[in-house]
């Protein structure tokens, strides 16, 4: 029986946007994340999927307190992060790390790879010269000791992503937020990095929040999946249930839109075509935020916000007329 590592409750993040509208200046609120709740168990991977702008990165950044949430709570190992004093927060922060999408932008070009990997340990005041640790970490991510003296531009995208992972592992984190960690990589290279994440997890037992828009990769790596739409979770549950029997119309449409690398399946498949694009998070639709694109929408969908409800196949979804 695994136990809970992270618990996110009613997380809200609004961004204030100042727009210059001719002579008048207006203030608008971007509702990036609205009432998001989920938990992650020790040693597990939660996949966070959804289209661009759905709030995935913002959730990840709020958990690490890289940005202050507007409201809601984040509990890590049973501690409410917002109630912690600075020193306590610092101690907990080392147990949570993040790896970003762009392996080219996330490393300092003027620092050797060794220095980049050492930096989190120095910032956290870990004593020692760390050179053995750097070698250990490089080998852990499939690179070699002599890479420590080299600079980021000497490495390919896949290798840079491995360096980013080595850096994130330096403080033995219990949780790593992986924000689109393989999106910038070619598929043949992506496979190796995904294998690395799996190997590290089985050896070191950390939890992942794996953010991606590639649903096939998430299906491969995640134990549980949360589907976001316009700042809210519309469906969450075990990977098998969500992929095999999606109950929210958006999840169903999203899965049916993903092109699968098999011409026989692709040509036989019935596809749900959604109309239009995702509406703006500045003025999200009332009630169910998906209603402007949903083929099942009724009057009630505009009036009443659907709540996450447990479905027969085990997952939860927020819809007045769930798929079965």
């Amino acid at each position: 029986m695994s136990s809970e590592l992270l618990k996110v409750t009613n997380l809200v993040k609004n961004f204030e946007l100042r727009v210059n509208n001719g002579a008048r200046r207006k203030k608008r609120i971007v509702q990036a994340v609205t009432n998001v709740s989920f938990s992650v168990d020790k040693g597990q991977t939660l996949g966070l999927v959804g289209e661009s702008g759905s709030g995935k990165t913002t959730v990840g950044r709020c958990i690490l307190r890289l940005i202050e949430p507007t409201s809601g709570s984040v509990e890590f190992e049973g501690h409410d992060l917002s109630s912690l004093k600075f020193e306590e927060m610092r101690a907990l922060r080392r147990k949570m790390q993040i790896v970003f999408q762009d392996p080219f932008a996330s490393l300092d070009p003027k620092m050797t790879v060794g220095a980049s990997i050492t930096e989190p340990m120095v910032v956290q005041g870990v004593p020692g010269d760390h050179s053995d640790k750097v070698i250990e970490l490089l080998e852990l991510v499939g690179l070699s000791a002599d890479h420590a003296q080299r600079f980021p531009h000497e490495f390919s995208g896949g290798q840079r992503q491995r360096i980013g992972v080595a850096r994130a592992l330096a403080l033995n984190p219990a949780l790593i937020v992986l924000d689109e960690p393989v999106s910038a990589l070619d598929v043949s290279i992506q496979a190796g990095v995904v294998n690395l994440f799996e190997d590290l997890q089985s050896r070191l037992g950390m939890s992942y929040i794996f953010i991606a828009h590639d649903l096939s990769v998430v299906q491969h790596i995640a134990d549980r999946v949360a589907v976001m739409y316009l700042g809210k979770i519309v469906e969450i549950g075990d990977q098998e249930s969500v992929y095999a029997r999606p109950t929210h119309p958006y999840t169903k449409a999203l899965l049916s839109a993903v092109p699968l690398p098999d011409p026989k399946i692709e040509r036989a498949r019935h596809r749900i075509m959604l109309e239009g694009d995702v509406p703006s998070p500045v003025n999200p639709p009332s009630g169910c935020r998906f209603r402007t694109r949903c083929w099942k929408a009724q009057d009630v969908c505009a009036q009443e916000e659907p709540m996450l409800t447990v479905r027969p196949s085990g997952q939860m979804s927020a819809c007045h007329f769930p798929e079965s």
Partner: protein
Amino acid sequence: MAEKVLEIRDLHVTFDTPSGPLEAVRGVDLDVSAGELLGVVGESGSGKSVSFLATMGLLPARARVTGSVLLAGEQLIGASAKQMRSVRGRLLSMIFQDPLSALNPVHRIGDQISEMLRSHQNLSARDADKRAVELLDIVGIPQPGDRARQYPHEFSGGMRQRVVIAIAIANNPKVLIADEPTTALDVTVQAQILEVIERVQERFGTAVVLITHDLGVIARVADRVNVMYAGRNVEQGTIESLFDHPSHPYTRGLLASLPRPGKQRLKPITGFPPNMLNPPSGCAFHTRCEYAADICKGEMPPLVGFGDLQTACVRAKELPKSESFV
């Protein structure tokens, strides 16, 4: 066999860079038949975009281009700038990943389509405007009459890409080249744009070249596929053959590396893409190929008919049968 509209032979493109000459395209042969949808795949840097930018005459002057590109019998390599301006938009159009860069921010959408029409056809302003609205309707823009009077910033990403397609097909070109047209779009919007491209292909008989890194997109819409590696075309054939029994080790590796339902471990291709300033000799894939032998390092293997595929691998006949990916 349908008529060939685009025939590329022995295309080479070399850029002069501060680190020396970089040969991005190293002898590409490729045919596009009327009305077909040809998918082009390959990893980043394999020369997909450069090959078709060369075809369009859109490379910077410091790029050296040699070889032959015949478009409906007309030779495009060495053609004058004036000749290429007449070809682009009339016989050959290209769309890109970022639709905003293709649109003029200060002109109305309808005017931009009309201008494309009138630059190649003898049409009155009124007829061109009418046709512009029809084209917006064809690419699935709701209320096309009203939308024609709006500006690019008033359109979403997916709607902009539809507009760019409308401009590209305005003069009913023989070939539409689409370079990663859905990469920047969300998957539900990607599905819509792929449908528009297929609709155009069917309705007007336009041949489409779709460049993508997504083999799922290829499986959905392509009739035939070209696989590129290190500036060469390493395998081509029908979509069914390529997914059922890929022959080239790189194609096999690519298909095997994709995550598929079920929890089996992923199989990456070992090693890294070659540095094109100094590509490996012979078959450039030999540095990563599990079947590589000394013979592979000698000469660049040409495409050879192998069953119903054309494959550039000197050992194609000796290799074990590939697993099927359908």
